[in-house]
């Protein structure tokens, strides 16, 4: 069954898989999470603002992102990003963006919708009295949010945000559909070049499993440590 399983093939391709592939995957995960949380928090504030001109577009955007498959969104942005670039820079032609930039925009904008929902739950978990108290102390809206609500909301939601980051890490494998060399893309290129599908895909699955499993265990530990005792 595994008689001709070629471990040498895996060892030989390790530098390519990790140096080229995993770097891309991890960098994409980290940047998309960081920017996604910022954009998501802004979307959450818009949704909770109670001002229709802010609430309606934010709600519409989040619901749209949450009702279509990620793969379809990857295709959308892959073709749309050059036009967005053209619109932003006022250039005459759709501008060429690299694979990484295109993926980063896609993941940031897509995951922002999910981070928005998490942050919204986090903000709503803060007792209303705290907002009232802060306002009574003379704080303005940015101060209430910046000093009172968001720090607590963020702290309460850290485990959920990190779990979503693990989901995002696994989702990065989907850039395969636009032939980008992330970790899985690298594995699949080697697999197809050498006809070693069994070795490469099994190895990729193990690597994804080890990283995601270790990360989710880490989140559980963290959750126990930072839990606020009420």
């Amino acid at each position, binding site marked *: *069954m*595994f008689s001709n399983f070629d471990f040498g093939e895996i060892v030989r391709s390790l530098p390519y898989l990790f140096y080229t592939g995993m770097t891309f995957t991890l960098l994409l995960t980290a940047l998309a999470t960081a920017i996604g949380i910022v954009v998501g928090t802004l979307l959450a504030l818009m949704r909770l603002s109670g001002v229709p001109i802010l609430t309606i577009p934010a709600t519409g955007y989040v619901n*749209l992102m949450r*009702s*279509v*498959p*990620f*793969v*379809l969104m990857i*295709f*959308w942005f892959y*073709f*749309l990003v050059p*036009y967005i670039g*053209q*619109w932003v820079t006022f250039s005459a*032609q*759709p501008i060429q963006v690299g694979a990484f930039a295109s993926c980063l925009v896609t993941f940031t904008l897509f995951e922002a919708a999910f981070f928005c929902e998490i942050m919204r739950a986090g903000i709503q978990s803060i007792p209303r009295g705290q907002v009232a108290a802060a306002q009574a102390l003379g704080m303005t809206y940015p101060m209430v949010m910046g000093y009172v609500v968001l720090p607590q909301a963020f702290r309460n939601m850290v485990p959920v945000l990190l779990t979503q980051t693990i989901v995002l890490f*696994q*989702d990065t*494998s*989907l850039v*395969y*559909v636009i032939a980008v060399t992330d970790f*899985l893309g690298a594995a*699949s290129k080697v*697999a197809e070049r050498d006809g070693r*599908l*069994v070795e490469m*895909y*099994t190895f*990729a*699955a193990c690597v*994804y*499993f080890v990283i*995601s*499993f270790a990360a*989710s265990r880490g989140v559980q530990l963290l959750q126990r440590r930072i839990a606020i005792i009420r």
Partner: protein
Amino acid sequence: MNYHWNWSIFWQLSPDGVHTYFTTLMLGTGWTLTTSACAFAIALVFGSVIGVLRTAPFPWAARLGNAYVELFRNVPLLVQMFLWYFVLPEVVPRPVGDWLKQLPDASFYTAVVALGLYMSARIAEQVRAGILSLPRGQRLASLALGMTLPQAYAFVLLPMAYRILLPPLTSELLNTIKNSAVALTIGLMELTARARAMQEYSFQVFEAFTAATIIYIVINLLVTFAMRLVERKLAVPGYLGFRAPAAGH
């Protein structure tokens, strides 16, 4: 913008020479729905079994259930599809592998199995949470009445758990439909794949993807609406989701 919009593209003949692009998208929708429905059925069955195992009073069962969930949750769906599609036929005995490879619609069956098992880990989590959310007294009372443990699950715990779980199960069903798009990587011609093919042949990128997006949204709305009706019918009296039947005033 130098993009040429052409919405009438949907009524033009696609390269297969028989169907218009619109019909190909509809065929894709059919595959998306069929795949999702079959996968969700598998996910419900396996998810329920594993969810029950994880709440059963045997340490080995809980450990087995946990291992199952961790295994399927920590490997990306796309990689799981590749494992089922490319790796499985190579590692099983040769006659079985050959049979698998020659199966008509192999990518459909693979997608159903891969997606079903992937989603089953999520459903197992929900079922476990649902059973644990029931008051402990319900299990104890059914056992005290002389029910065996399987009877307690079948007649008391699971019927209650499912009714409480309908809203999260609805979103898992929607996730199944969305995740079925990943099957395009193993060659299943579902909705996203058809939109992608339409874009490749006709170069009308945005029309194709707009149509697919709208179809997904419509499916989403229909499923949500249908499940709301079911939820209302099955809500457990006394729980927050329950709305008392309108009384005549």
